[in-house]
């Protein structure tokens, strides 16, 4: 189940992220078919328009593509594109929030650096 009802993210965004995780994990290999919007809608009990919106986000990013009459497929090179996208987001989702929390707790920059060093050695 990809849905987290306490998440601030809209369902369609959660769906797109879940699908990207599944592609990264190899659950949906490149050039294979992914579940249809109807299957997603019924399985996760979400409105089909929401499911379609989530899928369309991935089509716009060239992670999925439509094969006429067949359905949605994972693009070749999708994994690499997802990794690139996630790396760009890494700063916003992890580094910025790390610094914000550190400031709240009065942890200095040097101390953070030390902790990161420690994290790699443990």
């Amino acid at each position: 189940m990809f849905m987290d009802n306490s998440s601030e993210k809209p369902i369609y965004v959660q769906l797109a992220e879940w699908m990207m995780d599944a592609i990264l994990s190899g659950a949906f290999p490149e050039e294979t078919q992914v579940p249809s919007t109807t299957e997603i809608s019924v399985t996760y009990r979400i409105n089909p328009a929401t499911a379609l919106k989530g899928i369309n986000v991935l089509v716009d990013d060239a992670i999925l593509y439509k094969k006429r009459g067949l359905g949605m497929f994972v693009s070749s090179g999708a994994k690499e594109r997802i990794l690139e996208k996630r790396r760009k987001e890494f700063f916003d989702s992890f580094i910025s929030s790390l610094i914000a929390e550190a400031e709240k707790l009065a942890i200095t920059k040097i101390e953070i650096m030390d902790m990161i060093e420690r994290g790699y050695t443990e």
Partner: protein
Amino acid sequence: MNQIEIKGITKVFGETTALKNVTLTIEPNKIYGLLGRNGAGKTTLLNLMTNKIFPTSGEILIDGQNVLENDQALSQIYCIAETNLYPENMKVKSAFDWTKKFYPDFDRGYADMLAHKFGLDTSKKIKSLSAGYNSIFKMIIALSCQVKILLLDEPVLGLDANHRDLFYKELLSNYSAHPKTIIISTHLIEEAADLLEDVIIIKEGEVLLVDQVENLLSKGYTLSGVASLVDEYIKDKNVLAQSSFGGLKTAYLLDESARVNLPQGLEISKLDLQQMFIHLTNV
């Protein structure tokens, strides 16, 4: 098309005004949630749409045709009611046969398949069904009618969690295969929220708001932190409710303005449809 236009509908029962000048357009092929507290006027509105009762003033049009005594317009619409309109001694399977006479597109094979999935014994008499199976029986007929407009008034009343889950799934697969306009009136907002595309909230006989669920959710949020900071932040915002707990304050907002420059010490979290509904309709 299967658009419903509700124009200036007022319904008075004796001393009580159940609906006050309600104007709404229900767009075709969307799933709507009709939400309101007990006695808000949800069932009255659904009964007016199916011409079971007559408006005191105003009119309801389906694809431009008034529903008043209009068999053609009414043949496109099916309403699950709380009350059972079938003869009590009738067996489930005869009810299926009879429904086919009124709704020629009734899909008997599909009805039998659903009855099997839900474990409804079609040779039983309607009066012997439990509350849950009574709901299941009515819902199977509604889904099998293949009409363009489905009105579901408390469709999951008395259903256990497994059957509710199955119902939501069957409703979605039916909707995907045969797009139609669906209006669901329910008190179980939390579990139905993700099924809905649009929502109508009524309060004391009046329409409080009509919006896309996703749009509405994007406007709502909960803000908590030190009371003075919360007060400062919310002073020019649309606040639904607030509560204090010692020196801490929580505010529930429905506000379109961007959430920028959030002072340190304030935390934002999600306001889901059910919480939003509670704060909007509390007196």
